[in-house]
């Protein structure tokens, strides 16, 4: 599953890079360079080879962890990615923590108090959160909490404190879908016979909810969290852009605005790998949550 996806991603990326008008060498050196220099650099970069050879070279390089040189930043793409990825990972993971904490809590409360005012209010609130574009929310949060109220730094990344507002903004958005799904599956599970049995034998409500119901509701919840990984990555791209956090997202956005193709290609491929690994981790966690599911 992972291998055809990655082959597909490299192939389509590669084709796109070559369909796009504009000569990368001229982009790199400027329009006034003399033809001999251009020919020389082209040869040096291996751009004079036929396309399929270039593709195989790119794949062979990628397997060795060499994604080529950035045209504009004149640095190895792999190094640039490795330098920025930890920042993005920190943002995405803290956002995920916020999302799971808020999402589970709100979802469980909504399910336990079904049809209460609280339930209706949170369902409207979560749907609104899902409907709001993350970059807009980030922008407004930056204006209100950073500029007007001055509770948080406005932008940049110099201390862990700089990460708090971006993580909350990104996390809140994803907590909404987790909350909605938690509510639905919890409602399903609460009506099952074994939950009634647990209540009937006099267990405390807390134990019934947390160790009987929630455990069985976790599988679909983990699935949805897994499906959010891709959204979380894209979301952190936007959040990084708004808050000027120097992560993978800012790098990719800069790459595409400057038409730095190797860098774009590298960040996209890397993003796809992260995605596949994330999905794999989710698959593995099923076996832990539900012993009936065996890893094959």
């Amino acid at each position: 599953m992972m291998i055809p996806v990655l082959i597909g991603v490299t192939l389509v990326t590669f084709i796109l890079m070559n369909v796009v008008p504009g000569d990368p060498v001229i982009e790199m050196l400027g329009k006034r360079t003399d033809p001999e220099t251009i020919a020389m650099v082209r040869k040096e970069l291996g751009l004079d080879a036929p396309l399929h050879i270039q593709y195989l070279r790119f794949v062979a390089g990628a397997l060795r962890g060499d994604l080529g040189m950035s045209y504009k930043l004149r640095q190895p793409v792999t190094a640039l990615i490795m330098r920025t990825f930890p920042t993005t990972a920190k943002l995405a993971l803290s956002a995920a923590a916020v999302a799971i904490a808020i999402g589970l809590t709100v979802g469980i409360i909504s399910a336990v108090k079904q049809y209460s005012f609280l339930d209706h209010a949170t369902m409207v609130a979560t749907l609104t959160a899902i409907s709001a574009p993350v970059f807009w929310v980030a922008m407004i949060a930056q204006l209100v909490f950073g500029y007007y109220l001055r509770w948080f730094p406005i932008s940049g990344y110099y201390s862990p404190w700089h990460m708090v507002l971006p993580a909350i903004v990104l996390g809140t958005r994803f907590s909404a879908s987790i909350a909605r799904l938690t509510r639905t599956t919890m409602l399903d599970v609460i009506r099952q016979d074994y939950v009634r049995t647990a209540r009937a034998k006099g267990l405390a409500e807390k134990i019934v909810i947390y160790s009987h119901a929630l455990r069985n509701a976790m599988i679909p919840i983990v699935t949805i969290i897994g499906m959010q990984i891709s959204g979380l990555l894209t979301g952190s791209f936007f959040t990084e852009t708004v808050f000027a956090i120097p992560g993978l997202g800012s790098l990719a956005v800069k790459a595409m605005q400057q038409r730095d193709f190797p860098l774009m290609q590298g960040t996209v491929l890397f993003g796809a790998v992260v995605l596949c690994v994330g999905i794999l981790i989710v698959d593995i966690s099923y076996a832990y949550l539900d012993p009936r599911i065996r890893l094959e």
Partner: protein
Amino acid sequence: MRLLTRESKIPAGRTLWADSWRRLKRNKPAVVGLVFVLLVLFVGIFADLLAPASPTDQDLRARFAKPGSPSKITRNGTYILGADQFGRDILSRIIYGARVSLTLAIVVEAITRIIGITVGSVAGYYGGWIDMAISRVLEVLMAFPDLLFYIGIRFALGSSLPVLILAFSAFGWAGTSRFVRGLVMQLKESEYVEAARAQGFSDARIIVRHILPNCLGPLIVSITLSIPGTIMGEAGLAFLGLGIQPPAPSWGNMIYDSRAYLRVAPFFGIWPGVALIVTVLAFNLFGDGLRDALDPRLKR
């Protein structure tokens, strides 16, 4: 199912659709959603009549005019929601932006659904190696980071509305295919399909006349719920400076433009965002309600 309702003696008005409509009417959030969906459609269609000014008329002396301040370019003489960095009327740009967003979303929906339904029903109905081959392609398409594709296609072909439509359609059909494939696989085992086959109907007729009508409910729901995705997608691209290019108005490029002036004119960034959220929320509310109404067993 249509045959059954037409010929048996079920009281008039008790078709699947009439039943669903009755259930939908009782769901208040869904009705509110529907009203707003219709409102946005109305605004988009009659933008020329409703907008107080042309979306591209400028008045450089009225840059960032506050909401309610007097205006030379609008018909009623005020900037109801204020003016942008070129003194254009924000309300008019939002109204025309609705047209852009909806056109994009509806055309993309039409294209992706036609391709998706065709491919999906072929894969689901025939199964075997055809299904295998199609499914592998779909998996790759669905895992592909589509943002990159938009960026590439934008650089290759520029960024007009047709290019955006192409960009969003290129990958969008994969999801529908998978969805329809699953439904068809389920339905093709049912007795009425077997009966149709026994009568010697062609495969195409069985798919179009007997299987697809029964997929209609879930399909309508998924269309309603995927329109907001496209609208948000355009806004996201525009926010990276890759969407529909100014001076043509779109909610996304208005938000993009407003970013640089947020401290001077916060309302400039707030209004298009509010328009976007209300529209997306309306589609989501309506879609959720529709799902519950069409399939009461799913009632949560």
